[in-house]
């Protein structure tokens, strides 16, 4: 599975990066790399069954237990 993930990300890089370099879109490349790296780690963690903090749980906690604004 991890191998597949690597292959997938490699293909994404291979598809996107040359075009960006050819057009000299350095800024775009930087942002792209930033996003791709973070998504890569996110999906890697998911594959490894690491519990990722659930943002919805956080929202629920803030609204329900701290602010007490929820309906029911």
């Amino acid at each position, binding site marked *: 599975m991890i191998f597949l993930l690597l292959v997938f990300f490699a293909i*994404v890089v291979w598809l*996107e990066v040359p075009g*960006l370099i050819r057009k000299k*879109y350095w*800024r*775009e*490349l930087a*942002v*792209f790399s930033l*996003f*791709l790296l*973070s*998504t*890569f780690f*996110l*999906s890697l963690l*998911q594959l490894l069954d690491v519990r*990722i903090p*659930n*943002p*919805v749980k956080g*929202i*629920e906690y803030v*609204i*329900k237990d701290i602010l007490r*604004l*929820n*309906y*029911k």
Partner: protein
Amino acid sequence: MLMKIEKGTISSSQLLFLAAAFVQGAALVVAFAYVVTKHDVWIIIISGLAVTLPFLWGCVSLAKSFPGQNMVQIMESVYGTFLGKGLSILFISFPFQVISHNLRFIGDFFVIYMYPKTPLVVFLILFIAVCAWAVRSGIETIARIGLVTVAITIFIDVLTFFLLLGEMEATNFLPMFELSVGDFIQGTHIMFAIPYGELMIFLMIVPYVNKIKQAKSALLWGLTIGAATLLILVVRDIAALGSLANVLVAPSFEAVRLIDIAHVITRMELLVAIVLLITVFIKISVLYYASALGIAQIFGLRTYRPLVIPIAIFSVSFSMVIYDAAAEQMYVGANIWPVYSLLFYMLPVMTMLIAKFRRLPRAQEGVRP
């Protein structure tokens, strides 16, 4: 002045259909409101519309007073670069979250009703792949699909409505208005926050309408048509299913399953699944496009295209973790999310007020004749 990333333009009629399809994409989400308001859902569909129309009117007025600028650009010119970027990130995080939620809804629907043994992630990946394709093709392509989507949706909804006439009972709506004020407010809030108010995201698209003057009426009509479709849907479901509509995950799907005319015209539920698929596709694509474009603008990029695939992967990952169970989804959808989303709905209202206060659009016009 930022360079224009999107070069395409859409016509105001395309905007109308896009907005209508966007609202129609909420057919599944109405289930949140069912839990709260039971057989009076149709009331909150209308009251929610009544609340949303002025809100949306305000949003489009804001866009019109800054012609050619989308929300991210407006906020930068209202709040200045630094604060503007910060608030833009907040604003863009909204569609970003909504994508994942909708993705999860549609994935869960297919898993529950049609593919009980298939892993959820398969649906998420395939679906987001198609959306990514559409987003990369640009807003023009998405807009062209809008009309067909709306036409198919209305056709199928009306068709199934008539085919189900035999199963319907008017008494299912009685007693009317059997809901407390609290439930009514909550229901209206749900309708505002989940299907209707999300049209706010069209603030990212309105600048690309070729005749900006018609954009306002197009958007408001789009919302109304979408709400009318939801109304047809809800009336059909309640009339056909009665109190069962409150306990089923997808009442519209179950209602269509009841169609059986002489054992010949029967088993038509695939139609509903297709309608859901394409309307949710439009909804996700618009949100997706808005977030890709917004992020590109926040970072000052010249194209949003490289961001499309990372956002797709992010959405899939995110929608895998947001809910542990469908019950939680129901609870959050009905009770937490409407409150939470006010944080984002505040943004255009606040921007409008501050822009009025600072008399911003006029000052800018003075600078650039």
